């Protein structure tokens, strides 16, 4: 500790902190425009000047470090005078149009000027105005107001990693801009909005609307889009969301959000929100009261149970709703109705992860934390377009490469935004993952790069793995995967020889007929090298939706009770019976796809859907449509009308994430608290309230107060044992958290695996169900885009929709030329199951022979083309490989 004096008061400080940081700790405010704690200090705005009492010297406090014996004045007459002059100089270049500036009360310059008594017209202005960049739908740039603090430039490089803005020119014309003055979206910009949120003045402003005013309150909550689980504050004024803010002290994401989090939350106040229960009467849906709705729905369920038994009823829970509500939904299904027919869309994303990793380790989740990504020496990304699907995690990967010297290895068929950060990007043919994963492992064993100690102490089944791997020398699999053997060997060596190497994967690995095998092969690879249980290592499946981890943890699955306790285990059922007071059925229930099939066979008659849209998101939509039409009872609770609710007999208005309490569990197993910021519109209710009402009507009382539900969960699920709302105020807890004293677990499997030893599960390559042939010569792969989400119910009702309001078919220039297709042409895409019309986007991102479409757009419903062929174990359809034909219209 160093001793110094600040404004005459003796203080002690840790060496290595700056004078500014010290002053802030002491509660002394020093004005600064160019400083942000997450960025390297620059000292360019000069406002943070302080005076050295002994020498009378003035210097910037943001980049001066504490030294023993210093005596600092932060508010002396000289300092005040100097600051005043600096502000006057800034205003000589800054328009004094504060009354019409959208930065309004958020402008730091205006506040400091007011504090210092600067009017802004003391010095003659230069009177030079620069052109306004108004062509981006989300960001308004007016560089006449720029004060050259460089926060946007540093933030984009140091935090976001995109490097989309840079200072241009020198002298008077020195201003930030995108390269070649392109529109932001035409550059490497990902529209994360970080620069806008940190701009201290009005040079960068969010669009629209103008003049949103100042909030009445700010409510801390969790982003409802992807599994990253970013913490944010909703700015609320007049009962509406007027904006979003990150940068909450103690939040894991700091100032970072992505385009969806920043510009995608205005759907909450959209006029399309459902506000009253609806009942189908012929073609129309007419408003009814909640009492009627609950009474009729419960009555019909009881009738169906009486006629066809409880297994004629199915429930789709949701990865978008809270842990507490998912828990209640499955409890309702199992205890009130008496069926295990409860599933949700994790079936369609990470069910192979649950199956594959549970087999290998005994638990299935991201093993490490987002916070330790930057500690890796080597990062292997496969089957994940991270920048698009998990933008804030991608930021950490980019930082690891740019600032920590990590090597990024990508193995993915498509050219990705991350590719330009990669040391090497190998492009396998879709659906050949087991082949190259095995070849990587084979290389590691052959060249004796495997971690013998780890294998000896922590694993079992190594010998049988070696036996299987013998069939997969890279030279042999080159023909299957198209990856040159030597390059694959290089990647294998880089992964094996790194001290800390991590693997990130997502749907490119799981959405295959052999998805579970892919996951097992990944687990084998990580165990082979011992890259588990340390920071910067691990197997990191990136979960797609905000609460898909939680929905699985809560047992919204047909074969698992909460906490992955098997329904076919008598002991587990007994444990739940004791708390619920009802028998739990022992037969595993139906998965999403199986429910549709059972409906077509007449076995399933009623389906309750909470916040899901299977009509758009499930494979082979024509089957789904037939099934939904055939149901005797379809109830949909959602916040907006959806393609699925169009078939419903009853539509119930739900409360959005901003209108309820509860918890979401993010991809890094972080249980985070949602706080209620608004009242639900009209008579809308939370999913939990609806469940409680229905259950009561059916004669089984369910407590739905979120805090109480979490207490019940904590008693039944050991990994949530220490989760308590009172502990979640400051940024969440990562499970396993066994008791109220347990701090949570950032890294899994440090000492041992839940199943004891890690199990090598050898797997063999099997080709995808469909291969291209002369009739359907192209492979169709599906996925997401940055500016839309799921079936667009939320994203299309937010400003972000303007970025990409239409779907497209991405096609390689060579393929396009062969078919005479030009960029923007309308095209017909057909598979063995259906055909749709889309618009061609000719791009080298798609490899030759592969076309890509997103599944967001209901009017170009790509799932009319996909096949419902499923992984035998995880029951996930093969969304990533369908044979299709593309024709110009």
């Amino acid at each position, binding site marked *: 500790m160093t001793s110094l004096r600040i404004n005459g008061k003796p203080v002690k400080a840790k060496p290595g902190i700056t004078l500014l940081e010290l002053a802030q700790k002491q509660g002394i405010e020093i004005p600064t425009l160019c400083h942000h704690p997450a960025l390297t200090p620059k000292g360019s705005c000069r406002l943070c000047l302080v005076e050295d009492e002994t020498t009378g010297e003035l210097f910037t406090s943001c980049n001066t470090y504490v030294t023993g014996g210093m005596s600092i004045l932060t508010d002396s007459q000289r300092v005040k005078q100097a600051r005043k002059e600096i502000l006057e100089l800034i205003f000589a270049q800054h328009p004094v149009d504060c009354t019409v500036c959208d930065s309004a009360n958020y402008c730091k310059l205006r506040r400091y000027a007011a504090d210092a008594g600067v009017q802004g017209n003391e010095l003659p202005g230069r009177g030079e105005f620069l052109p306004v960049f108004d062509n981006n739908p989300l960001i308004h740039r007016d560089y006449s107001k720029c004060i050259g603090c460089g926060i946007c430039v540093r933030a984009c490089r140091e935090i976001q990693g995109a490097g989309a803005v840079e200072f241009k020119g020198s002298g008077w014309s020195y201003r930030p801009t995108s390269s*070649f003055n392109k529109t932001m979206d035409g550059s490497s910009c990902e529209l994360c909005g970080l620069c806008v949120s940190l701009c201290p003045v009005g040079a960068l402003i969010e669009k629209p609307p103008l003049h949103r005013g100042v909030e009445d309150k700010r409510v801390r909550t969790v982003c409802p889009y992807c599994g990253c689980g970013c913490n944010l504050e909703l700015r609320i004024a007049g009962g509406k969301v007027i904006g979003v803010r990150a940068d909450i002290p103690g939040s894991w994401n700091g100032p970072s959000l992505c385009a969806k989090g920043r510009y995608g939350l205005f759907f909450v106040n959209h006029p399309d929100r459902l506000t009253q229960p609806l009942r189908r009467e012929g073609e129309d849906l007419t408003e009814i009261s909640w009492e009627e709705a609950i009474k009729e729905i419960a009555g019909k369920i009881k009738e169906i149970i009486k006629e066809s038994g409880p297994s004629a009823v199915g429930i789709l829970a949701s990865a978008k709703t809270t842990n507490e509500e998912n828990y209640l939904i499955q409890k309702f299904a199992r205890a009130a109705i008496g069926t295990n027919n409860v599933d949700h869309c994790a079936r369609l994303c990470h069910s192979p992860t649950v199956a594959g990793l549970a087999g290998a380790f005994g638990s299935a989740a991201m093993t490490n934390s987002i916070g330790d990504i930057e500690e890796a020496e080597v990062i292997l990304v496969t089957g994940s377009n991270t920048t698009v699907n998990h933008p804030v995690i991608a930021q950490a990967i980019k930082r690891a490469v740019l600032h920590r010297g990590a090597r990024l290895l990508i193995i993915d068929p498509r050219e990705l935004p991350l590719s330009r950060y990669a040391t090497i990007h190998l492009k396998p043919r879709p659906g050949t993952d087991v082949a190259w994963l095995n070849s990587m492992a084979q290389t590691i064993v052959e060249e004796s790069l495997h971690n013998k100690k780890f294998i000896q102490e922590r694993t079992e089944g190594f010998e049988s793995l070696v036996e299987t791997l013998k069939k997969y020398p890279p030279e042999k699999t080159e023909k299957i995967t198209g990856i040159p053997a030597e390059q694959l060997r290089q990647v294998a060596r880089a992964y094996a020889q790194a001290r800390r190497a991590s693997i990130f994967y997502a749907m490119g690995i799981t959405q295959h007929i052999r998805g579970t095998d892919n996951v097992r092969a990944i687990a084998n690879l990580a165990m082979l090298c011992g890259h588990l249980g340390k920071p910067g290592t691990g197997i990191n499946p990136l979960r797609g939706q905000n609460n898909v981890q939680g929905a699985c943890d809560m047992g919204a699955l047909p074969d698992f009770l909460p906490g992955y306790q098997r329904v076919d285990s008598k002991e587990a059922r007994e444990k739940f019976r004791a708390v619920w007071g009802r028998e739990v059925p022992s037969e595993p229930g139906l998965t999403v796809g199986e429910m549709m099939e059972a409906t077509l066979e007449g076995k399933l008659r009623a389906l309750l859907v909470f916040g899901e849209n299977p009509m758009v998101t499930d494979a082979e939509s024509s089957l789904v449509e037939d099934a939904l039409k055939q149901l005797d009872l379809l109830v949909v609770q959602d916040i907006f009308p959806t393609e699925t609710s169009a078939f419903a007999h009853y539509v119930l208005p739900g409360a959005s994430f901003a209108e309820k309490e509860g918890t979401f569990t993010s991809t890094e197993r972080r249980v985070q608290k949602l706080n209620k910021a608004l009242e639900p519109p009209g008579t809308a209710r939370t999913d939990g309230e609806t469940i409680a009402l229905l259950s009561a009507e059916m004669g089984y009382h369910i407590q739905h107060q979120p805090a109480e539900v979490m207490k019940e969960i904590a008693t039944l699920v050991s990994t949530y044992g220490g989760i308590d709302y009172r502990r979640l105020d400051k940024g969440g807890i990562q499970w396993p958290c066994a008791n109220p004293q347990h701090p949570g677990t950032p890294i899994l499997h440090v000492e041992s695996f839940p199943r004891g030893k890690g199990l090598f599960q050898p797997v063999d390559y099997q080709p995808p169900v469909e291969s291209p042939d002369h009739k359907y010569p192209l492979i169709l792969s599906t996925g997401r885009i940055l500016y839309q989400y799921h079936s667009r119910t939320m994203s299309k009702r937010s400003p972000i929709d303007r970025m990409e309001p239409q779907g497209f078919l991405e096609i390689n220039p060579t393929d396009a030329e062969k078919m005479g297709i030009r960029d923007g042409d309308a095209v017909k895409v057909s598979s063995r199951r259906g055909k749709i019309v889309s618009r061609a986007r000719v791009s080298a991102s798609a490899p030759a022979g592969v076309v890509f479409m997103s599944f967001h757009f209901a009017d170009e419903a790509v799932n009319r083309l996909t096949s419902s062929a499923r992984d035998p174990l995880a029951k996930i359809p093969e969304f990533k490989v369908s044979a299709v034909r593309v024709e110009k219209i």
Partner: protein
Amino acid sequence: MEEGCNHKHRFASVDDLRPLEEILKRYEKEKGALIPLLQETQEAYGYLDEKIMRMLAKKAGYQLSQIYGVATFYTQFRLQPIGEYLIKVCHGTACHVAGADLITEEVCNQLGIKEKETTPDGKFTLESVMCVGACSLSPIMIVGEDTHGKLKPTAIKKILKSYYGEPKEEDE
């Protein structure tokens, strides 16, 4: 290439990536050699074309914005193609005192262009530069490789004309 781009004799076409690849190879092992890299690239292509810069960023491992920032910071770098002859009128102190403004004005008059512009026939590009280090010859302008000193505005017309009359071979 469009017609009228007469610099094709001296500079590589931006569709030809070979010169860039050669330069990149030479600097492969040198870190932080961005400025010489850009200088040589500009020498090869006459200016820093967007496409070439994107390629350079990708191959040399820079972010495009970084390169763009450096290229716009220094006046020596050009982002637009130049004519066959680059006219640099010196505006250093000595030349300024000796009437450099009048020289620039006369060149503008004669060619019908403004500073930093290129004549429609692609012959000349006009730039103002700081001291070229030949103050004894002030005011001075450099046309292509040729230095013209102790200029008077009245002499400009003849000098410029001389670049039209001469047969092409002499350039080469």
